[in-house]
């Protein structure tokens, strides 16, 4: 891994991010202009960091799940639930720290539920998390009683709109979380275990890895990340919207992870590159907005980008024999 350091700087994800940012700059010359106002930085580029943070945070948790050959469809619904918990508790008069801790605990509980279904009941991840994806939004509406719960608690709002050393708080949280989780999986054997489960769960279990516990752990981490993202989004709009908070963000998060080079077939993952993937998506969103295109083009550009990535990652080239496809792909991805 050591000799890869230079190559890492030249990896396709970072190049793609630079390319998207340069295109934005070409379409909108003021893209990189950053100004200092009211003790914080302002500008389109800072906006990309700020707006991209929720998806980046989701992508951090999603990377671990996808590396075990799973997928977590429920993160958007968990965001709505946790935002609703934080908002209703603050409105009910609880201090912000307690509301935040409660929301995080609810997120972890949702993740544990997903992990229980996947690891203990052996249900395929896509169905297991579909349960909470469908029911979660209903639960969130149950908590907010169908209305949008608004609040004016400055300390909670700070999490969404505040700044730290001039940088938006959401981006700082995402950065810290990325570093912590990356250290956790790369400086301990956990990352290796996760990869082993993703490659072959049965073999990993036979090799002595507690695959059930680890699976529960990655889903709990995904729930925790979703809770953070949910609190940030609720704090940003000063209200919990059970219907729209985190709507379809699970798909953006999965997309970010896939752009980051994590294989949906498990066994290969990178958390920092997933965050770069989230920034690429947001840079395109912002680029389309600032360059005056209609926002509907966003979806088409996204679809085009997925198709492009699929073409690039496709094992089609140099793939001769029919059913050795899987082997050549894994050999080619190293």
């Amino acid at each position, binding site marked *: 891994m050591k000799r890869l350091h230079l190559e890492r700087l030249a990896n396709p994800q970072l190049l793609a991010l630079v390319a998207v940012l340069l295109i934005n700059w070409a379409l909108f010359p003021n893209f990189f202009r950053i100004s200092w106002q009211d003790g914080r930085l302002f500008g389109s580029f800072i906006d990309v960091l700020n707006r991209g943070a929720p998806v980046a945070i989701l992508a951090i948790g999603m990377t671990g799940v996808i590396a075990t050959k799973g997928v977590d469809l429920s993160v958007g619904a968990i965001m709505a639930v946790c935002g609703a918990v934080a908002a209703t508790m603050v409105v009910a008069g609880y201090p912000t720290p307690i509301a935040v801790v409660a929301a995080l605990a609810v997120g972890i509980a949702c993740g544990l539920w997903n992990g229980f279904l996947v690891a203990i*009941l*052996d249900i395929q991840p*896509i*169905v297991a998390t579909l349960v909470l994806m469908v029911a979660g939004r209903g639960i969130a*509406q149950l908590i907010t009683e169908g209305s949008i719960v608004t609040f004016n608690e400055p300390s909670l709002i700070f999490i969404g709109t505040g700044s730290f050393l001039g940088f938006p708080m959401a981006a700082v949280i995402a950065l810290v979380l990325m570093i912590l989780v990356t250290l956790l999986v790369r400086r301990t054997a956990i990352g290796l275990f996760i990869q082993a489960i993703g490659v072959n769960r049965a073999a990993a279990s036979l090799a002595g890895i507690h695959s059930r516990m680890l699976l529960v752990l990655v889903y709990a981490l995904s729930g925790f990340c979703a809770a953070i993202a949910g609190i940030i989004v609720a704090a940003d709009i000063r209200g919990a919207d059970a219907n729209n908070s985190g709507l379809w963000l699970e798909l953006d998060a999965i997309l970010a992870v896939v752009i980051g080079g994590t294989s949906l*077939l498990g066994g290969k993952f990178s958390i920092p590159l997933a965050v770069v993937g989230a920034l690429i998506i947001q840079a395109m969103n912002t680029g389309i907005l600032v360059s005056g295109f209609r926002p509907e083009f966003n979806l088409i550009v996204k679809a085009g980008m997925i198709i492009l990535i*699929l073409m690039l990652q496709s094992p089609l080239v140099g*793939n001769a024999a*029919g*059913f050795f496809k899987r082997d050549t792909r894994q050999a080619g991805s190293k």
Partner: protein
Amino acid sequence: MKRSLRPLAATAVIFLIAYALSVLQFPGMLSTRVLGNFLTDNAFLGIAAVGMTFVIISGGIDLSVGAVIGFTGVLVAVLISWMGLHPLAAFAIALGVAALFGGAMGAAIHYLQVPSFIVTLAGMFLARGGASVITQDSVPINHEFYAAISGLIIRLPGGGRLSFIGLLMVAVFLVGALLAHRTRFGSYVYALGGNPVSALLMGVPVARTTVQIYMLSSVLAALAGIVFSLYTSAGYPLAAVGVELDAISAVVIGGTLLTGGYGFVLGSFVGVMLLGLVQTYIIFDGTLSSWWTKIVIGVLLFLFIVLQRIIFAASAPGEESPEKV
């Protein structure tokens, strides 16, 4: 009874029990009017669920269904109201476009060897974005043909009415069941979902079948879009958002395994009816808020998954086929 029919029987029995309990509480639910509306209100969902059943039996997933419904609605509305085409011509164009779209997705899944999840996600973005680019607003359809079709109803004793679109859904389910269980294509789909490698070795034309499966799903989604436009007399780019999730739920509740290779088309019909029952019950009750629908559907999904797990407990745990996402 054949062991393999147990999940289907379980779903049917649960539907009957749930319906009986609802009738005990609200006798008004036992009427041809309610039953007729079951079919009419869920027609588009049912037609989409038939296509989804084939995709899921083959071991894949199609996230683009809702977006294709929305896109078809807009396309049909624009062709009729702005271009002045006859609805039948517009329907033919919409179905053709959907066939190309689904075929392209199937080809991408097979030739690029990427999970169907990601390809159909791209398809979802593309179809939804395409619909929004055509128009942002709801486009009304005022054509005598639409009025004629809305007038095509069979009156039942007791005030019930079987609408054209409700009967169309039933017909699609019957044709789908024949296609799945009585044709060569159907057995290819099952073989592919059971194990793609053995299917290939047995001589199943994997490429052609994959393309046909996604083509079928998109064409049926387009048909569902047409039905939706008949139902609402308008085309709206944001129509039917999230219908793919309802369709997947109906298919899973109907006893089809998401790992592929096992399932029933008619089970999905019971699944759709069960989802319709939940909504009708909540409307009848009047005091329950709409969000209970989502919670109940989530709980139902969970119950049926656990039920399947118990029924299939004999199969080796932890041994999932490697390529399913």
